[in-house]
């Protein structure tokens, strides 16, 4: 079943400090933290599920400048 996705992000995995703030901040709740994968500094980091709206709440709340946010010209059906 595909999900309408209006936006997407690029995640700077190495910049992340695993604080989890983006998870709660995301209105459609499409960010989920890794459970086992960590970056080179030992922090877990977020992964993006389909359904992003490009609202950039994650970028605004992130203390470590992890996110680059894009909005698709045409919404995509993903998944």
């Amino acid at each position, binding site marked *: 079943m595909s999900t309408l996705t209006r936006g997407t992000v690029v995640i700077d995995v190495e910049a992340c400090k695993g604080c989890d703030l983006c998870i709660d901040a995301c209105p459609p709740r499409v960010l989920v933290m890794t459970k086992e994968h960590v970056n080179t500094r030992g922090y877990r980091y977020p*992964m993006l599920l389909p359904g992003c709206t490009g609202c950039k709440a994650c970028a605004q709340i992130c203390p470590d400048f992890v996110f680059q946010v894009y909005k698709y010209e045409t919404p995509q059906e*993903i998944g």
Partner: protein
Amino acid sequence: MLIEREGLQVIDTDRPPAEPARLVDDFTPELVDVGTHGLCPGCGEPIAVRAAVEAIAELGLTQRTIAVFGIGCYTAFSNNLDVEVLQALHGRAPSLATGVKRARPDTAVITVQGDGDMVNEGLQEVLHTAARGESVTCVMLNNGVFGETGGHLTATTVLGQRTKNTLDGRDAREHGYPILLADLIAQLEGAAYVARCSVNDAGHVARTKRHLTRALETQMQGAGFSFVEILTMCPTGWFIDTLEAPAYLESTVAAVHIPGVVKDVLASRG
């Protein structure tokens, strides 16, 4: 564009989208030189600093701004912002800012100070600067702890708030009562714009940026002293998990240091 990781179908977020898309927010604001910094996970201060430099850039003040930094965890940013920076001693930023603005009235002068810096060490400086109506913008990053020295209480720590020396919550009998600085400053006639906001969710961050913008506009119109108090998370100083900090801020700190526009003389003039 989907890849599998930990049993989930996730978007490949290591590269920009192949489909046509426009960039709506870049990693760092153009005025921050570094992506990684040494502040704690979940710290609210970088969020506030980001909002400040974005406001400066959006108002077109990049080449007219001098930022005067106090001493605290946020001092790390005095070293990697692409605006001119004057580093002050603990508590002393408002007097330096006064000297800068009087000598160079065309610049946009903003201070960045923590609550320990501004309300403990430097209380007289910020009050006098506000009373004089100096056309500078003082910004307080308020987390109710001395972050850099280990998390002890400050003059703004609210009753019941957990810090290193108030692990059971601040008790008035032992440590007295917090100073609500924004409310104090608003009573001074020299203060033209006084606002309080927070960075514990994306909506509040957006509002913080609006207050900062308004404060800088007040300064550039020569209307008087402007002050923005930004409540920030300090999970380390509060001894809580990073995920709990936004809610703790809301229920503990923001319940006393109440967000909102406390004073806006330009708005009331219409």
